């Protein structure tokens, strides 16, 4: 067990190191969020409702996640490092879990910038809305890491990914938008939690089959 967690930690740390080597992920996220907000500003002229703004927030979050997930297995693909990991790990699901933690860290970093900025410029975010974001992020990274590994194993990684990912992400968006907008967010949050549990277990169990023949 602790050996398993050790593998997960080593793998996640490797991703953070790769990212911190470029040293500019967080500033890049900040810039990206601000640039997106500016695009929204020009797209959404004054009078639009708060609900539309929440919709935009969710589109932006999904797109950001997509961007991060598209990159997530690129280092593994470059010189066949994924093969190396498949040979070296005793339980391959550790590879998946490490990747989930790393992508979650990056998405979380982006959200730490994006959410206050959104609240400042567009519409307020209450507790349920934040809980919705947190739950949806877990689901996005759990499913996304599996699906992007499938895409990486196939040809043409980045873009096969959204094809696989978006249908799976639409329930998360519906749940997320619901938890920000609806007067009764509890149902939506419960739905998000259920989704996370089901798909995390499914992804965890399925990963082995994705990376081996």
């Amino acid at each position, binding site marked *: 067990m602790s050996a398993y967690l050790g593998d997960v930690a080593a793998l996640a740390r490797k991703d953070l190191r790769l990212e911190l080597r*470029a040293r500019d992920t967080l*500033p890049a996220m900040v*810039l990206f969020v601000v640039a997106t907000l*500016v695009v929204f*500003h*020009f797209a959404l002229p*004054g009078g639009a409702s708060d609900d539309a703004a929440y919709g935009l927030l969710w589109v932006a979050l999904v797109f950001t996640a997509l961007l991060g997930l598209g990159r997530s297995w690129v280092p593994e693909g470059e010189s066949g490092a994924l093969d190396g990991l498949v040979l070296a790990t005793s339980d391959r699901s550790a590879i998946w879990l490490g990747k989930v933690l790393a992508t979650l860290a990056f998405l979380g970093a982006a959200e730490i910038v994006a959410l206050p900025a959104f609240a400042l410029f567009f519409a307020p975010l209450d507790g349920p809305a934040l809980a919705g974001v947190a739950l949806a992020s877990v689901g996005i990274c759990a499913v996304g890491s599996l699906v992007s590994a499938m895409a990486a194993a196939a040809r043409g990684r980045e873009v096969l990914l959204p094809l696989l990912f978006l249908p799976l992400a639409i329930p998360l968006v519906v749940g997320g938008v619901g938890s920000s907008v609806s007067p009764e967010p509890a149902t939506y949050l419960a739905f998000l939690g259920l989704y996370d549990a089901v798909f995390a277990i499914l992804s965890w169990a399925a990963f082995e089959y994705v990376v081996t023949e």
Partner: protein
Amino acid sequence: MSIRNPSLSALAALAVVLGGVSVAMIFFVAPEDADQGLSQKIFYVHVPIALTAYLCFGIGAWKAFRLLLTRGERYDLESYTGIHQGTIFGALTLVTGSIWAKASWGVWWTWSSNQLVLFLVLFLFYCAYFMLRFSVESGPRRERISAVYALFGLALIPVSFFAIRLASDFIHPTVFTREGPQMTDSMFAAFCASWAAITLLAYVMYRTELAGKRTDLNLRELREALVR
């Protein structure tokens, strides 16, 4: 090659003196604004700083153009330094503008003035310049890619200007119209003094940063040569 450059020190001293003079003029020569009172004094800093930022971006683009034309390696550092200074002054524009906005409009920032958003876009553009630069392996390839991006910035300025005109609505005031500056002579004099001081300051900062960067580079090469 030394940072202790006598003419640069003299210029720095001159900038300080000019700065003192302009502060004196701002507070004792220029009249106090009827509506805004003391907070209008920010005008004398805010506007020259903004103009200086544009000037620095312009210099960055010009050096970039020279680099592409002549392959002169030194223009890379010069272009980078110009844009770096431009970003510093751009950030200062945002800060002074925000302070003024808080004083006269009651908010730190507003999306309703497209003029402000334009400047923000430009600022973002140049932040992305640094991102680009730091993520490309150093070498001739990086010099050229950075230069091309810097040139795009020069084209972006008038294009966005026009875009802003199109999207219209002006909260942000205009002073320099086709009929010349809309202010009294004493205000204009104070403005010019401050403008000169800040431009000179920018120049001194530009030269200092450049000298520092070059010394750094030389040092690293020397160390490399010593190691082997």
